[in-house]
């Protein structure tokens, strides 16, 4: 029955589509001005109108949020389909519209030049300890670049790296932090540039091999997903273990190596798509939150599998609909009575803060919520026992 279908369809088993339309009705972008419809795409691909699909600017509006994958009764992975289609679209000359006119993707591209020696470690705080050699490395990702590029939003994303290091140090772990790591290639992969993605992946893996590491700790959900899931898929098996920092820290807490305490406050948690629906990691961040003394945690009505996306993916999908999604999500967080919305993805953080910043003056009172990264918050909670220990 399946003979004659192109590999794209075979890989996704898209021929199982029963045209129920669940995907299109749950798709947040379908409510937006473009009215994008995953079902229509699947149908077009099945009926051999691939050209029409890859020439459409629509293709770049999908958030890869995975909501459609979650509800599809036929288990079709629409996001995989989109990744492949974007790759073809790029080859056929269909260009995407990028945030900051593409500066963020470009920065990744520049890191592909092996002859450039980066200076990416100025952020390292004096009170943290790192090693030159060892089994464990901490992969920082693009955090040092975000704070510069989004200076107007002031997301303080580098505090995520500082916080992670402080927590690891508190448990007696001094990881390698390398000046030679490159962009993980997540945005290149999802915007269709598989060639550039593979190049970056190989550079990174070669570097890890040189260092001889056995464990790679990653704090950015997208970097984590990319390295653990897509590096093996595209460039072959890895000879080191990739670990998500919150899972690691969660274990350290259970072992009693880290204790945390902070001023009383109510918080809620936003699941990043890459961690949640893509990787099914829901509990470790919640576990860390639960172990910070004095935090009272309130779940938002839409959470875990049904949690919405922050509205932007790979810096190519930002538009009015994204803004609406962000505002709705922030309002949902406010409705729980929390004073802080915690997230674990630096990009979610940037996009939400961007929306908050754009709110008109008169709305500032009603939009009183702070968005903060879990590593940043947890490391602040860490300060007290650290001082006592000194």
């Amino acid at each position, binding site marked *: 029955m399946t003979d004659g279908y192109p590999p794209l369809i075979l890989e996704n088993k898209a021929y199982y589509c029963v045209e129920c339309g669940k995907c299109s009705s749950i798709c947040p972008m379908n409510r937006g001005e473009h009215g994008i419809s995953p079902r229509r795409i699947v149908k077009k691909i099945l009926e051999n109108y691939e050209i029409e699909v890859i020439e459409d600017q629509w293709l770049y509006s999908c958030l890869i949020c995975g909501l459609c994958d979650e509800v599809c009764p036929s288990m079709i992975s629409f996001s995989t389909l989109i990744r492949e289609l974007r790759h073809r679209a*790029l080859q056929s000359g269909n*260009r*995407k*519209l*990028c945030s*900051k*006119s*593409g*500066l963020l*993707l*470009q*920065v*990744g*591209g*520049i*890191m*592909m*030049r*092996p*002859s*450039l*020696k*980066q*200076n*990416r470690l*100025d952020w390292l705080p004096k009170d943290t300890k790192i090693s030159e050699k060892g089994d464990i490395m901490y992969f920082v990702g693009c955090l*040092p*670049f975000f704070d*510069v*590029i989004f*200076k107007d939003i002031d997301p303080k994303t580098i505090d995520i790296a500082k916080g992670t290091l402080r927590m690891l140090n508190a448990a007696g772990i001094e990881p390698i932090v390398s000046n030679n790591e490159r962009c993980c290639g997540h945005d290149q992969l999802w*915007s269709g*540039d598989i*060639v*550039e993605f593979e*190049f970056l992946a190989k550079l990174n893996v070669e570097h890890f091999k040189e260092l001889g590491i056995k464990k790679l700790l990653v704090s950015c959900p997208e970097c984590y997903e990319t390295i653990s899931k897509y590096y093996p898929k595209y460039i072959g098996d890895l000879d080191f273990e990739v670990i998500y920092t919150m899972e690691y820290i969660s274990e350290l807490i259970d072992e009693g190596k880290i204790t945390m305490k902070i001023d009383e406050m109510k918080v809620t948690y936003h699941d990043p798509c890459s961690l949640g629906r893509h990787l099914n990691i829901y509990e470790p961040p919640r576990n860390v939150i639960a172990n910070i003394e004095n935090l009272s945690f309130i779940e938002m009505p839409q959470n875990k599998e049904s949690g919405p996306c922050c509205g932007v993916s790979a810096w*190519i999908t930002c538009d009015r609909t994204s803004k609406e999604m962000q505002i709705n999500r922030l309002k949902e967080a406010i409705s729980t009575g929390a004073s802080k919305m915690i997230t674990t993805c630096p990009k979610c953080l940037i996009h939400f803060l961007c929306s908050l910043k754009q709110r008109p003056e008169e709305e500032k009172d009603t939009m009183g919520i702070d968005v903060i990264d879990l590593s940043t918050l947890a490391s602040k909670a860490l300060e007290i026992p650290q001082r006592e220990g000194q």
Partner: protein
Amino acid sequence: MDNMFKPRIIAFCCNWCSYAGADLAGVSRFQYPPNARIIRVMCSGRVEPRFVFRAFEKGADGVIVTGCHIGDCHYISGNKKAEERMKLVRYLIGILGLEEDRFRLEWISASEGQKFAHVMTAFINKIKELGPNPMFGKIEEGTECQQ
């Protein structure tokens, strides 16, 4: 080898002041080395960080952005925006591993033909000292996001 090195310079000049300044340098026959390719923009505020990096990616050894003096911008505050953005560029250049001196921002008015020639000569000499763009040699031009 060093004598053979002919730096490739991209100069973004704002239409109202610096481009006219370059013109004046030309008609007044002020000599300056011929390494700069001028790209005219309506205002220095039009130059996005991406343009500068694109020039480097395409093989420029140095990039200079010029505009009207602060207060003289024909779009009121374009050059102030440029100043902010170019701070970002300089910082990014630093962490990415290119030398910060490969990039320069200058205010040159329409009447400053002499200054234009001076700035260009000095900049080109600086780039000659620094040598070729360190990005090059290994990989072909990027396939990055284009609009």
